[in-house]
């Protein structure tokens, strides 16, 4: 029987706070982390963002980094979050030597690149950040700091990156390639992504309203989240936070940035996840939707829901109005939120929702809801048609 892959640790830093507890507190209080750019320098200061309210200096201080460090913002986030997860999982120094690290990121060290791009040629002072631009560097820095000695790799599939990282980690354990792996992702706010999304005209000047008929775009966010996954035979009685029962990855093969009307990629990814989990659709108690609040995604995703669940679409909500859309980190963050939901039998609300979409009439859960939860579906869909769905399940003794 498919027992699923064990989760023994989680860590997160987001606009909601710098720990799982702080994030949980905000989620249950319905308190958004959206605000306006404070540390992040941009001319578009009117656009709401899910900014982590720590400067790079403060974050580097938490990690005791020396002045000449090469930790870009996403690296700082990733190290802090992964460290929390490793701590919770009580991994020893010896454990770490064989523990893998799979991390998702879309921007890598772009925050440093955009800062120093115009000075690299004339000045030498910041050239140590040149290698930091590329995603693999971020991952290697985190792995090195945390002394993770197993297989290390980076996935960059835009907004589904960390969901794919979690999926890969689960598969590596299931096939016996690894006993332990830290999985998740990190991204920070950059001019590159903010202006990129703005040029696509899919950013909202308001706090986003996922699945609402009058939704008009997303808000970007930043942060990192990681899980520790372990094989059953190395647990030694450790507390289990939950299990990854299913996972599915499919490509929409439709358009580079827009999702197909039929939500084909989403439909296939969800279907595959259910197959791996060995669950019929009706066993899903809650969906943590991708729900970016763009006209396109929410309609496409809803269409996929109707195709899979028919008339019985389970309770669903998007938590992106809490954290903003954290791009590559979103899958990891929503994994943490899904596990918190399972542990506490609570569904976190889809903030700012008022009117259901005229095409579907579907209503997300808009207030904190107590409900016994056994299986949660979490979706992450990215540019390039990359769709990934994960199923988290309560650990049944």
């Amino acid at each position: 029987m498919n027992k699923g892959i064990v989760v023994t640790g989680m860590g997160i830093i987001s606009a909601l706070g710098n720990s799982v507890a702080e994030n949980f507190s905000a989620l249950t209080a319905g308190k958004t982390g959206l605000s306006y750019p404070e540390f992040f320098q941009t001319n578009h200061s009117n656009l709401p963002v899910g900014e982590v309210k720590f400067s790079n200096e403060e974050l580097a201080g938490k990690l005791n980094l020396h002045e000449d460090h090469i930790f870009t913002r996403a690296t700082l986030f990733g190290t802090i979050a992964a460290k929390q997860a490793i701590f919770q999982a009580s991994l020893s120094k010896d454990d770490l030597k064989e523990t893998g690290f799979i991390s998702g990121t879309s921007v890598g060290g772009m925050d440093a690149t955009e800062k120093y791009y115009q000075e690299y040629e004339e000045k030498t002072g910041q050239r140590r950040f040149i290698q930091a631009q590329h995603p693999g560097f971020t991952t290697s820095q985190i792995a090195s700091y945390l002394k993770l000695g197993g297989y290390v790799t980076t996935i960059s599939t835009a907004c589904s990156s960390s969901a794919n990282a979690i999926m890969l980690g689960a598969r590596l354990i299931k096939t016996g390639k690894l006993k332990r792996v830290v999985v998740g992702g990190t991204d920070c706010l950059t001019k590159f992504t903010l202006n990129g999304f703005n040029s696509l005209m899919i950013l909202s000047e308001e706090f986003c309203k996922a699945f609402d008929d009058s939704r008009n775009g997303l808000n970007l966010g930043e942060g990192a989240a990681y899980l520790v996954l372990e094989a059953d035979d190395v647990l030694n009685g450790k507390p289990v936070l939950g299990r990854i029962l299913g996972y599915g990855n499919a490509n929409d093969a439709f358009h580079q940035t827009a999702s197909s009307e039929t939500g084909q990629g989403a439909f296939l990814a969800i279907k595959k996840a259910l197959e791996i989990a060995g669950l019929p659709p009706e066993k899903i108690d809650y969906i943590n939707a991708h729900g970016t609040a763009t006209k396109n995604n929410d309609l496409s995703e809803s269409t996929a829901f109707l195709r899979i669940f028919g008339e019985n679409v389970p309770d669903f909500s998007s938590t992106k109005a809490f954290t903003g859309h954290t791009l590559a980190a979103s899958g990891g963050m929503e994994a943490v939120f899904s596990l918190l939901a399972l542990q506490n039998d609570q569904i976190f609300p889809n903030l700012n929702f008022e009117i259901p979409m005229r095409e579907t009439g579907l209503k997300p859960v808009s207030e904190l809801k107590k409900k016994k939860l056994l299986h949660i579906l979490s979706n992450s869909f990215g540019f390039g048609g990359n769709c990934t769905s994960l199923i988290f399940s309560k650990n049944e003794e």
Partner: protein
Amino acid sequence: MSDLRTELKQSIIEQLNLEELELADIDNDQPLFGDGLGLDSIDVLELIVMLEKDYGIKLTDPEQGKEIFASIDKMAEFIEANRTK
């Protein structure tokens, strides 16, 4: 052919990387999207920026784009009516 229409054809060829095309290849009333020239939603966004940059017209809803940019004639009409540059 009015200057504006020629200007627009030149802009489209440059902006949208249609290097293989000559000005004469685009008819004034030819549909630019779908089966016509084959432009897509990304091109709409490119043209929206061009509208603001060259003619001072700011479009906030990309959905309007497909109608306004339906053909060179339609584009020229819209610009003539709304330009601030």
